[in-house]
């Protein structure tokens, strides 16, 4: 029965070094511990200088995404027992600039999120006195899975296009645009289409499909983007063949 397990963590301290180095730590092995618990043990007992983000520890806030053995993972939902006998390599999320240790900069993503206009767009708002917009359970089902995105950015770390083409708006942002497009209360599909048919939009996606594979919440961004391509192509064809039908 194993007593301890080794974690090899990529450290980066910009005041001291120009590139990341791997540092090994031995932590107690507990059946119930997630990788996050091991990281906290290191920070509390072994090395207070290890920096990483975390908050809810239940897989819903999206803070703790990191590369574990080369795979984008939510460290609060990945258990030490799955990685025996170790060592476990923990690095900062791929394709993002590293600020410090396991902390990456996500300002680029935050800008991309805003670009796709992820809010209800309506020509006319219904007054509150008239109550709710009716939406049947079937209509809700159409976009519900796309609304489950916790912005953990594992999909960005898995997408080679994000790595090769930094201007690509990316899986989560496009999936969120689709979430609104498919919401029966929204009327902004045309606006979003003109943004996402551009150079940085859905057509950059080459359907590698890894984003959906790593998504911990079943958002299926790959599916969202491919369906969006179908919509986009149909729309383009219609505008070509029937240019007078402006809608």
């Amino acid at each position: 029965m194993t007593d301890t397990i080794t974690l090899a963590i990529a450290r980066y301290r910009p005041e001291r070094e120009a590139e990341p180095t791997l540092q090994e730590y031995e932590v107690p092995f507990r059946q119930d511990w997630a990788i996050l618990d091991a990281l906290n043990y290191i920070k509390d007992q072994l090395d207070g200088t290890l920096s990483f983000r975390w908050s809810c520890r239940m897989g819903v806030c999206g803070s703790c995404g990191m590369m574990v053995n080369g795979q984008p993972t939510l460290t609060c939902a990945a258990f030490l027992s799955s990685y025996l006998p170790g060592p476990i390599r923990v690095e900062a999320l791929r394709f993002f600039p590293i600020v410090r240790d396991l902390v990456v900069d996500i300002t680029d993503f935050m800008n991309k999120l805003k670009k796709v206009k992820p809010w209800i767009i309506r020509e006319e708002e219904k007054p509150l006195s008239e109550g709710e917009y009716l939406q049947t359970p079937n209509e809700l089902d159409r976009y519900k899975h796309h609304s489950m995105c916790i912005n953990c950015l594992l999909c960005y770390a898995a997408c080679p296009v994000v790595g090769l083409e930094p201007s690509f708006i990316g899986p989560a942002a496009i999936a969120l645009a689709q979430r609104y497009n498919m919401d029966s209360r929204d009327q902004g599909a045309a606006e979003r289409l003109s943004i996402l048919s551009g150079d940085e939009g859905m057509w950059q996606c080459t359907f590698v499909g890894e984003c959906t594979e790593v998504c911990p919440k079943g958002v299926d961004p790959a599916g969202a983007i491919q369906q969006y391509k179908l919509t986009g192509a149909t729309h383009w064809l219609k505008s070509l063949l029937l240019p007078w039908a402006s809608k």
Partner: protein
Amino acid sequence: MSSQPHYTAYHPKWYRRPVSVWWWLERWPYTKFVLRELTSLPVGYFALLTLWQVRALVEGEAAYQRFLARLESPAFLMLNIICFGGIMFHALTWFHLTPKAMVVRISGKRLPDAFIIFLNYVGWIGLSAGIVLIWMRG
């Protein structure tokens, strides 16, 4: 060990990991993806081959026999076998990806992915069987 840091107070330098040109060899899903994309070459090749075949047909019996004889050479045989493998890989990977792009709903419930994939296989086998039947009759 590490080279000198370029740090100025309160202005940390973010580290950007370089993406290697061999990125697609780092993980099997990426390699599979690139191979899938490369199958566009065998598809293009078979398209050209078909055009060549049609031209030979149009030119007459003799030209067509010459064409068939050419195809029996070991070089062409090898090439066609490899490209056929490519086309199979191409078709099967796309069968499995179809449900992502095409969501079919019947009375509000989404048809399971496996069913859409199954329909693809049925269509393929059905069409192939049909073509074989016509060829055997003729």
